[in-house]
């Protein structure tokens, strides 16, 4: 018996005796004193210990004035930086066009990405062609960055499934409308990649609202248990339709949720394309190196309405939106590029023209596509037509 254990048992015995025989004979002060003494002894012997402690990192590289922290700046060539700007501008041009097309009744409901360009383009540019991508429904910037033809995005939002058919050379999943329900698919694909020993990572996109869903927790837990090569990219845009971030979770950050699942989480300035790019690149490299999953919280803002079917002025203040407009991701990159001599008014004009031409082309192409063959409904339900489907086609 160790000295400690002896002390413990004698102390426990003493107090049990007091409790059993004498305790009730005392009253008031004396009784309290005995209780305190007992607790004090117990605490000395079995003190509470801190067995784990955590901290949450936040990464900022490029500020609103276009200044960068050079010690954190990822290594990027001038051309890569220009590409970041050009793709963001293309995505924004596309987004604005899609909104006008919706207003004119030429496409259906559409979810704008305005304000989230750095989160989407910065993360997507860090991906390799062999990586698998599982987007939610607000990732038009991701699709555009990865080379999914923009006219197909318009085709989908105008009600044609064929717009979801990503090309064979890309591993992008169709958009996912039921919130966060695609996160289990991402971990499954990551498990398959790991099983096949492919040097592939999986990126899954979702929003702050999605972190309240069971599938978010099930997927992150699963990814943590099996140390899967997956990067969870949460665009915390502060609003899930009308519900603000603080009503989704009482956690101070979303990044810290990773801690509970046994892997790293980091918050980055989601309007800072360098920070998003760096965090994503590092997470993808770690995933491919067998170091497991990462949760990245891109702290950003949904400047537009939830979708064209929503009116955000019903539930949030104009001043809040205006304050976020000052943090615009394109503006700060432009300021940085200007200081570096990479941006001129002429360059801006040229990039805008190119973006507009590309979006014009996408619009033209989307609108020239004939409606799908109604038989497609039947053709793609199963790999082969069933007895019933054959009859339904015949009677169609």
């Amino acid at each position, binding site marked *: 018996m160790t000295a400690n254990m002896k002390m413990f048992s004698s102390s426990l015995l003493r107090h049990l005796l007091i409790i059993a025989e004498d305790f009730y004979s005392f009253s008031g002060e004396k009784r309290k004193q005995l209780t305190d003494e007992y607790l004090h002894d117990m605490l000395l012997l079995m003190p509470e210990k801190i067995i784990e402690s955590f901290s949450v990192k936040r990464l900022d590289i490029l500020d609103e004035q276009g200044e960068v922290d050079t010690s954190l700046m990822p290594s990027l060539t001038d051309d890569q930086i220009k590409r970041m700007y050009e793709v963001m501008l293309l995505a924004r041009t596309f987004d604005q066009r899609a909104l006008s097309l919706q207003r004119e009744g030429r496409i259906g409901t559409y979810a704008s990405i305005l304000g989230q360009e750095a989160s989407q383009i910065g993360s997507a540019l860090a991906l390799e062609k062999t990586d698998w991508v599982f987007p939610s429904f607000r990732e038009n910037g991701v699709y555009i960055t990865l080379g999914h033809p923009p006219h197909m995005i318009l085709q989908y939002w105008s009600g044609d499934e064929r717009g979801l058919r990503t090309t064979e050379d890309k591993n992008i999943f169709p958009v996912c409308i039921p919130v966060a329900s695609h996160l289990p698919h991402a971990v499954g694909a990551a498990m398959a990649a790991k099983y096949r020993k492919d040097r592939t990572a999986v990126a899954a996109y979702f929003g702050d609202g999605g972190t309240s869903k069971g599938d978010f927790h099930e*997927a992150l837990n699963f990814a943590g248990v099996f140390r899967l090569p997956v990067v969870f990219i949460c665009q915390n845009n502060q609003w899930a339709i009308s519900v603000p971030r603080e009503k989704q979770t009482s956690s101070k950050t979303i990044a810290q949720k990773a801690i509970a699942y046994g892997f790293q989480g980091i918050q980055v300035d989601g309007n800072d394309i360098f920070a998003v790019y760096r965090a994503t690149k590092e997470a993808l490299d770690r995933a491919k190196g067998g170091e497991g999953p990462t949760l990245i919280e891109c702290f950003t803002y949904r400047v537009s309405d939830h979708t064209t079917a929503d009116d955000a002025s019903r539930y949030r203040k104009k001043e809040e939106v205006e304050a976020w407009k000052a943090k615009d991701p394109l503006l700060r990159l432009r300021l940085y590029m200007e200081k570096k001599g990479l941006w001129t008014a002429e360059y801006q004009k040229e990039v805008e023209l190119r973006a507009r031409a590309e979006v014009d082309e996408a619009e033209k192409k989307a609108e020239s596509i004939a409606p799908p063959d109604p038989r497609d409904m039947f053709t793609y339900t199963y790999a082969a037509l069933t*007895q019933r489907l054959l009859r339904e086609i015949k009677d169609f």
Partner: protein
Amino acid sequence: MVQAINLALREEMQRDKDVLILGEDVGRDGGVFRVTEGLLEQFGQERVVDTPLAESVIVGAAIGMASYGLRPVAEIQFLGFIYPAMDQISNHSSRLRSRSRGRYSCPLVIRAPYGAGIKAPEHHSESCEALFCHMPGIKVVMPSSPYYAKGLLISSIRDPDPVVFLESTRLYRLIKEEVPEGEYTVPLEKARLVQEGKDVTVISWGFMLHRVLQAVEGFDAEVIDLMTLNPLDEETIYGSVKKTGRVVIVNEAPRTGSFGSELSASIAEDVMLFLKSPVMRVSAYDTVLPLPRLEDHYMPSVEKIRKAIADVMKY
């Protein structure tokens, strides 16, 4: 039937290293019914995956694996626990081929034990196959014997579409039957004519077939084992109904909205003019499934089935 299913899994895993199993307790424990016993030892933990206790991600991860090119077989421990995964089954696995216009498909199998009759606790005895039949894109298979369980499971694993494969807990250890080793398949979308008869067609699937076979004694009944509920083998069913003109459908699910109801409606629509009597359904009651002390009263009995057959024979 436990051994037959185990054999199917084992042989398919030997044949194709893209086939893997995931679910709760499927590895070290060999499954709560021992269906996956010995597979962990043979194939390792990368192919026989004990997952966290979370049904939605079991099915959801299987969808991700299937779209990546693997052939996952996901086990849900009891059918009554499948509801958290319904979103994955209905909104994703069934639709992936269609919504990606063929770019992705979802060749996965979801195995789950179903049905009452083994005195299991609450939520362990459900028979909700009709729910999956209402999801276009899903195939629903319910074997009635060891031989067919093996052949159907092999077909399900090789099938290019998602299959919900429901195994009667009652049948797991009820019947002994020669099951050949080695490869054979039983095609999906094909019902089985168990016995021929002239006067009445009795249709059932899974465990109910065995009660039907007892109930038809003394009648000149044609017995059909559906095996695959969706896609439905209309040809075999209608062929038989045209011959007998009388139909009794037996299922152990609650009556309202049961798959028996779908069959009954289809027969009424398509082969009405051949019918001599109303189409009868024998099913469980439209009640919550009772705990074991009342389950014998809940499940369709041989007597109830006999009575239904006798009723249609009055016409």
